[in-house]
């Protein structure tokens, strides 16, 4: 019995993809040319799977801020904030995030993954109850295993099921903490947040909303789904990431709850990891400024999202339930997803493959994400490549029906 024998089936699949020369889980970019183009295997490739929603990774103001911060504060922080001290940038970014959301407290984590780990594991302690949407991101599931609360999952986007579960817990002691996401990363669907907020109020639970994929995308000022749904006051904590709309790496949480400062000495994923380096903090702060002052980015992003969604819909692909910057085509099998992915890449278009158990209901997905930096011509070109590859593989709905 060798150490990796338990992964034999998965290892065989991975080897197969490597041998076919088309492994979506091991893509090596050469030079990245812009938010929308990179060199892949020596060829200029259109990027349609980067979560670079506002396209700010090459924004001149963002790059200048990062360079300046490196010059003045060095390359790394070489330690954690509780043990080795915070830099000025950490506090400034936290203040900016709190100001943007109109909240009292802001807290920065070293990745978005750790923000969920750090907030969720600290909020729900021993004797408390954590209720997760069934389609929650892996970081939320992992967070639920890091803490000591009792964890149950409710049906995806079902306020009724959440209410049922809170009703069963009504006589149990302990706090009840509910976790939902703004936009779900696999199918691009949004939560019925107004209805969740009503259930949360009825049962006296706390509500945490992960806006990782909705910050900079939804809401009148880009704060996310809670803003769009008009229920920010019911969302006790907003969690988010810097690695999508904000073009960096890191995560954050904001709240109005009194006493939230204590999280800095109880949240292990905050305490026992190195803090973000000055360049990343300054770049994120600059990107947040761009997000706040250039609403046109959000409008372009959403126009691109709708353009791609409608285009793929017209071709006959079965898509997620609503247009969003995440546009996922539901494939008949993992093999079909690999086939389409490889054909698109060969044609010069980079997308993503998502497979169970990372996806809901055992779905195999060919996932795309659009950027404000895409030109309409690039989106149209991508749709044309989907048409060609989809047709040659028999994946367009009209052709699949004809083949039956």
């Amino acid at each position, binding site marked *: 019995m060798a150490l990796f024998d338990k992964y034999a089936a998965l290892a065989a699949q991975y080897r197969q993809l490597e041998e076919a020369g088309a492994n979506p889980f091991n893509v090596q970019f050469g030079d990245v040319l812009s938010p929308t183009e990179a060199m892949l295997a020596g060829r200029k490739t259109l990027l349609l799977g980067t979560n670079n929603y506002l396209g700010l990774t090459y924004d001149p103001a963002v790059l200048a801020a990062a360079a300046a911060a490196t010059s003045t504060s060095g390359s790394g922080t070489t330690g954690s904030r509780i043990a080795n001290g915070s830099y000025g940038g950490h506090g400034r970014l936290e203040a900016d995030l709190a100001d943007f959301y109109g909240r009292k407290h802001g807290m920065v984590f070293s990745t978005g993954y750790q923000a969920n780990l750090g907030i969720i594991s600290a909020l729900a302690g021993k004797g408390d109850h954590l209720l997760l949407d*069934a389609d929650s991101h892996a970081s939320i599931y992992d967070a639920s295993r890091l803490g000591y609360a009792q964890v*149950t*999952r409710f049906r995806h986007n079902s306020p009724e*099921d959440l209410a*049922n*579960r809170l009703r*069963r817990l009504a006589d149990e002691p302990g706090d009840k903490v509910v976790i939902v996401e703004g936009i779900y990363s696999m199918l691009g669907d949004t939560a019925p947040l107004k209805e969740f907020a009503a259930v949360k109020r009825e049962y006296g639970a706390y509500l945490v909303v992960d806006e990782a994929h909705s910050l900079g995308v939804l809401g009148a000022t880009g704060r996310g789904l809670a803003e769009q749904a008009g229920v920010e006051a019911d969302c006790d904590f907003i969690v988010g990431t810097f690695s999508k709309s904000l073009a960096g790496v890191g995560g954050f949480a904001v709240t109005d709850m009194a006493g939230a400062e204590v999280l800095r000495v109880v949240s292990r994923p905050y305490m026992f990891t190195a803090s973000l380096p000055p360049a990343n903090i300054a770049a994120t702060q600059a990107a947040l400024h761009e997000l706040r002052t250039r609403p046109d980015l959000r409008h372009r992003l959403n126009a691109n999202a709708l353009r791609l969604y409608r285009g793929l819909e017209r071709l006959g692909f079965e898509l997620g339930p609503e247009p969003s910057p995440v546009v996922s085509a539901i494939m008949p099998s993992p093999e079909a997803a690999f086939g389409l992915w490889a054909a698109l890449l060969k044609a010069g278009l980079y997308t993503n493959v998502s497979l169970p*158990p990372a996806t809901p209901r055992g779905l195999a997905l060919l996932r795309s994400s659009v950027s404000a930096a895409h030109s309409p011509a690039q989106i149209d070109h991508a749709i044309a490549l989907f048409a060609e590859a989809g047709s040659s593989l028999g994946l367009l709905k009209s052709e699949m029906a004809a083949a039956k």
Partner: protein
Amino acid sequence: MSDQASEIREVIFGTLQAALPQARPLSDETHIIEDLGLDSVAVMDFVMEIEDKLDISVPLDKIAEVETLGDLVATVQRLKQAA
């Protein structure tokens, strides 16, 4: 065996048969992951059906401890009695 245990077993086995792509023999000794080829999410989805039918909530750590259908029957029975 109590009436409640056999009723719970009936609900669990019936729900599982309906969720499987093809009918197969099930017993208390059936391993849910190895014998039925369900992944972790499919198991949690199947437990959700049972939760609805019996009006209970099964915490994830309890699901993680379950290996066989017999384990699941026992876990669900304990939760139902506590409810």
